[in-house]
């Protein structure tokens, strides 16, 4: 039985308008900006979240910070400036800003009798937390006139079940609105057509599925269940001869979280689809494998993910501008 659906599905977004709620991106949430390893020493790194350019770095104590990558004076990207471990100096007129608060601490051009209240000038600054090898940045709603009305939640973190674990990471940029990336994450019906392999699944292995879902805070859960017989990682896990149980959650703004338990072994993964611009998002897969010799399983599963996103072909279909980095990148920590 089919039903024509939602009028809220965006097939395109209008370019050019300013960052705001009408871009379909959600403010007042944490988003992963960069990998922790991308900011080392006093070097600066850049990122974009919800069309906001960011400059990120670490202070002398190693604590991460994120500022809007734009000097409030004349808009010069602060990432071109100099960072001494405490303050970031704009390369244009040498204005200096505290890296964590964004407060202006010096304007070299001011004469001794200037009455300008330098300390009242701020570069945009954003809360930062490091979790699971990412620098997460909290993006407050720019439309809110006062500060946040509710206490800021902690940044998301993969749960830990033991001291022995291995983290792996895979990511790719997707040239579409974040909504399309997210509904791709929760789409069960494309598997037999996109994730095919002779040993796992094809259109001939399609079978009837029935799953229970329940509401959770800000999302929903595919209730704990024994996985389908034609599901790849689960097929491999059966070699351990232990009962397998899996739970999959989705929660706003962008997070799919899966836990698999196979006897004494745990496997958890989190996928986030992060809005960069209204026409570009980035998908990150973070997996934690605990007490389980699952290197081979991870490798197989990641290869399926690579297959999902085809390599750029010779034809560019007339698309202008730089290509997003859709070649998945992976590594283990």
């Amino acid at each position, binding site marked *: 039985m089919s039903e024509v659906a*939602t009028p809220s599905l965006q097939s395109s977004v209008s370019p050019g308008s300013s960052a705001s709620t009408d871009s379909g991106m959600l403010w007042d949430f944490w988003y992963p900006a960069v990998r922790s390893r991308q900011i080392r020493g006093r070097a600066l790194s850049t990122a974009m979240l919800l069309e906001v350019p960011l400059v990120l770095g670490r202070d002398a104590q190693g604590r991460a910070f994120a500022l809007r990558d734009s000097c409030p004076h004349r808009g010069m990207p602060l990432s071109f400036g100099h960072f001494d471990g405490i303050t970031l100096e704009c390369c244009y007129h040498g204005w200096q800003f505290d890296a964590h608060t964004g407060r202006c601490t010096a304007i070299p051009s001011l004469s001794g009798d200037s009455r300008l209240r330098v300390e009242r000038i701020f570069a945009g600054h954003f809360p930062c937390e490091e979790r699971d090898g990412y620098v997460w940045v909290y993006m407050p709603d720019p439309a809110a006139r006062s500060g946040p009305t509710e206490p800021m939640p902690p940044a998301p973190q993969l749960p830990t079940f033991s001291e022995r674990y291995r983290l792996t990471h895979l990511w790719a940029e997707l040239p579409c609105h974040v909504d399309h990336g997210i509904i791709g994450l929760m*789409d069960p019906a494309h598997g037999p057509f996109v994730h095919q392999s002779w040993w796992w699944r094809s259109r001939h292995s399609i079978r009837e599925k*029935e799953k229970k879902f329940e*509401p959770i805070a800000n999302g929903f859960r595919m209730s704990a269940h024994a996985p389908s017989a034609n599901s790849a990682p689960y097929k491999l896990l059966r070699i351990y001869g232990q009962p397998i149980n899996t739970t999959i959650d989705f929660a706003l703004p962008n997070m799919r979280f899966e836990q698999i338990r196979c006897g004494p072994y745990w496997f958890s993964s989190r996928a986030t689809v992060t809005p960069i611009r209204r026409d570009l998002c980035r998908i990150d897969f973070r997996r934690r494998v605990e007490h389980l010799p699952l290197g081979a399983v991870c490798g197989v599963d990641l290869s399926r993910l690579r297959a999902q996103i085809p390599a750029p072909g010779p034809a560019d279909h007339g698309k202008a501008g730089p290509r997003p980095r859709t070649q998945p990148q992976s590594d283990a920590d």
Partner: protein
Amino acid sequence: MEKQALGLAHSPNLMLIDDADRPAKWYFQLKAAHLESKRTGAPMRHPLDGPVTLRWRS
């Protein structure tokens, strides 16, 4: 996704069908409920009021 983006660039009308696309519908309903809750200050009205069973072929 890159192939799909080529099609999305032309602003096609799109569909979500039951039951396989029901989670996608919930996603859009959750977004709308969240924004409405922020706008009004009222508690968020969750689109699911209890357990639901979905069926599809894959």
